[in-house]
């Protein structure tokens, strides 16, 4: 059992395809404070590699990326 991450905000991008998950996540993060955590849910199979790239490019840390009931869950920490 891995540690539980407590998110400050949840963003559901289920059903959305590229580039929406990345765009929505970025928009949500802009409204947040440094150090806060966004939990993002997506169903686009392109989201895992894209969120990793987005994290590397923006410097916002991807704390965890996992699959749950066929959905992709990301925990992103605002830098």
């Amino acid at each position, binding site marked *: 059992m891995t540690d539980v991450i407590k998110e400050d905000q949840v963003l559901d991008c289920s*059903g*959305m*395809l*590229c*580039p*929406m998950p*990345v*765009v929505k*996540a*970025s*928009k949500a993060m802009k409204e947040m404070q440094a150090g806060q955590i966004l939990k993002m849910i997506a169903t*686009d199979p392109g989201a895992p590699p*894209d969120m990793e*790239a*987005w994290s590397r*490019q*923006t410097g916002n840390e991807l704390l965890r990326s996992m699959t749950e009931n066929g959905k992709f869950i990301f925990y992103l920490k605002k830098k």
Partner: protein
Amino acid sequence: MSKSDPNAPKRLALIASKGTLDWAYPPFILATAAGAMGWEVGVFFTFYGLTLLKPDLSASVSPLGNPAMPMKMPFGPEGFQNIAWPMPNLLMANVPGFEALATTLMKQTFKNKGVASIEELRDMAVELDVRMIGCQMTMDVFGFKREDFIKECEIGGAATFLEYAADADVQLFI
């Protein structure tokens, strides 16, 4: 001047030269994705791409001359929806309204699958401060006026784009 400042964000410079629905997607998808990654983005809309800056987008798609385009139905059971219908050129060229039908089918299929519309992507590009440059020469050639385009765009020429692209990390012609 992105190159002279090591802390400057990355920069993407695109040329959008085509105005059909299928070709409208790549520049707007790349522009919004790059904007979401914190990059600076500039898009030069030239030739038929210039029409993508009109307030009311009427981009359509023609299967004629697009032999690799899969024709899919946006309704019915999944197996039916996944069928790629063979469309002979003779049919596409001669049946009135075929292009309108193909456009409707593509828009509906995209919507069903969760792809944003061109209008939505353009609105997001505006929100992300994507610099949109309409080509002055194309305006002159096709008889467009400044008022024919959205107020968020600027008008410029090849030199305007090249100066911006010279300091870009990624440049693409679409």
